[in-house]
């Protein structure tokens, strides 16, 4: 991007679309997902915009109910009624997923983007062998393939995620939790997608297996150059895995920055409280972030969404919704606490 400024104006158009733009795999613009309830729409995801570059891992963190999983389900077009995508664009490889219907949508699924599910325990069909579950995916999208070729390919996938080849003939209940999760990872990369969404890939696993699954994901990314969105609460996993971290609160992204940057300096008061609430073995600190004070998601809130819980709330926070601004290099935050140069006001 810096090179673009030195190139003459004619080339600027192509140059500014240069590496960064072309390498954008996923471009989400003003995504809105609402859940219909008898007393009005719950705005589960409200005006979320972000981009994912090729080969990049994005982390999506935030408390339960903040819209992380809903965002992921919206990208996969798996929002179940009464939920619906109320607006926005989901551009994956310059195709707007939000517009796809029927067979177009079905054919895009798994070939372009796949899912590593949250509950790996129950995400595999209990009455089908692991191999059959991978087979039906490949056959559905690629048509007739000889059994021998298919078997070879599946064994390769299993090897890639560190599973022994005997898993091929096994049923899900014969695998441990970590093995099931790795089988899910093998399935997710079977069709070489450009984007993999991992929804809390390590929840319900013990710490050692969490670490192993994290390493498997990283290894898969390195080898295949696939982009990932990893959703989770586990800050340790995020630190191990992701390039950039997005912090969500009440259906919006409040802070988005490279992971080192965010661990060094949290700009948004919510992120500060979130990081502070990670238990420490050195000191017993009181929990500053309290539960149950999120505003009613059915009403549109005047001003900042975090004003009810924010320790630094100012008058302007009740009036104006803070826009996302890059306050540090590549470090964006939606907060009135800083001026345009990123200097904290009080």
């Amino acid at each position, binding site marked *: 991007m810096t090179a673009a400024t030195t190139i003459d104006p004619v080339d600027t158009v192509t140059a500014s679309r240069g590496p960064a733009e072309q390498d954008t795999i996923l471009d989400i613009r003003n995504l809105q997902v609402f859940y219909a309830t008898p007393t009005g729409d719950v705005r589960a995801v409200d005006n979320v915009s972000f981009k994912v570059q090729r080969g990049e891992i994005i982390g999506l963190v935030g408390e339960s109910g903040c819209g992380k999983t809903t965002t992921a389900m919206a990208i996969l077009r*798996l929002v179940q009624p009464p939920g619906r995508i109320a607006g926005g664009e989901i551009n994956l490889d310059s195709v707007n997923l939000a517009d796809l219907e029927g067979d177009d949508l079905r054919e895009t699924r798994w070939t372009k983007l796949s899912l590593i599910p949250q509950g790996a325990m129950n995400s595999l069909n*209990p009455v089908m062998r692991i191999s059959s579950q991978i087979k039906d995916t490949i056959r559905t999208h690629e048509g007739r393939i000889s059994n021998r070729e298919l078997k070879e390919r599946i064994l390769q996938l299993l090897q890639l995620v560190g599973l022994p080849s005997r898993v091929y003939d096994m049923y899900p209940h014969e695998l441990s939790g970590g093995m099931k999760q790795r089988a899910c990872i093998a399935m997710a990369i079977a069709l070489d997608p450009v984007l993999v969404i991992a929804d809390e890939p390590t929840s319900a696993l013990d710490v050692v297996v969490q670490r192993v699954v994290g390493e498997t994901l990283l290894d898969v990314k390195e080898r295949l150059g696939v982009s990932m969105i990893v959703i989770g609460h586990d800050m340790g996993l995020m630190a191990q895995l992701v390039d950039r971290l997005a912090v969500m609160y009440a259906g919006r992204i409040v802070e988005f920055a490279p992971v080192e940057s965010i661990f060094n300096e949290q700009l948004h008061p919510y992120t500060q409280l979130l990081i502070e609430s990670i238990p420490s073995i050195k000191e017993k600190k009181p929990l500053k972030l309290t539960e149950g004070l999120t505003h009613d998601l059915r009403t549109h809130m005047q001003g900042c969404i975090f004003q009810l819980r924010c320790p630094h709330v100012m008058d302007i926070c009740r009036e104006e919704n803070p826009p996302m601004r890059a306050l540090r290099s590549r470090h964006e935050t939606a907060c009135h606490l800083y001026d345009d140069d990123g200097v904290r006001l009080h």
Partner: protein
Amino acid sequence: MSELTLGYFLRRLGMWLLTIWIGATLIFTIPRLAPGDPITAMVERMIQQAGYIENSADLIEAWRARFGLDGPWHVQYRNYLLSMVRVDLGYSLANFPARVTDIIGRSLPWTLGMVSIATILSFCAGNLIGALMAWRRVPAAIRNILPVSLTFTSIPFFMFGILLISFLAFKWKIFPAFGNYGRGVEPGWNLDFILSVLHHGLLPVLSIVVTSMGFWALGMRGMMVTTDGEDYMILANAKGLRSRRIFWFYGIRNSMLPQVTALALNLGAVAGGSLLVELIFGYPGLGYFLYQAIISADYTVIQGIVFMLIVGVATAVLILDLLYPMIDPRITYSKGQA
């Protein structure tokens, strides 16, 4: 999945034999606990009808010997078990010298044919309707029509049978009112006979199917709704599988398991449960003869048919035990988890 082992098969076969033995013993015991005995009762009935019978005491003795009812109970029991093993169920009391095995042999194929076809049809139709009622991708218009097909579930099947006879057989004369095949048709593998059998069997089958379909449909709908909420259904959608494949291989396949158990138990009870249907349609099956035996106090026939029912249920459970691990891989043939 561990393979079907000889040990497992023998264990299950042992259970099967044990069940039948206990059943046979109960059949042997219960009539003997009741006061009086069938021979005396029958001879007394004959005396009432005829006024007087010479040497009635000798007659009773002779018949008791003929039916194996003399001698101490353990001798009787041994002879009884031996005859059961030889599938010799003795003679009918009411229609002597008809053999019980002949009566059963004549009626069993009709019952098995008619009722098991009805049960299987009802099972398939009911489960499909139930699954479609729970499947969200079915157009709402069709999903709203489906429950209408279950209206007749609340009517007892014999009532529905009477309804069918009075309209389709008596009023409009489209179907025969009774029997298993028409007069003047030569039984055998010829088209006339087969058509006649189908023609006669349709109404009884219909009355069972229409009234029992709802049982399967409601069970299936509940299971399907549960299955649809499972994580693997979400993943199946995310995988971009065709809707039809998800419906059959992910939805129905997983929802079927409890339904299959119920089917096996139903098949076992097929003969007994069809009693009223066979009676209404004058269909000469097991249930029909059971009814005849009961009203004429024909103990040996009752015993024989009840024994057949016990064998039927035990065999169905045996087959289910052998099949279940193939349907659900989480159930294994191994000893520890059986």
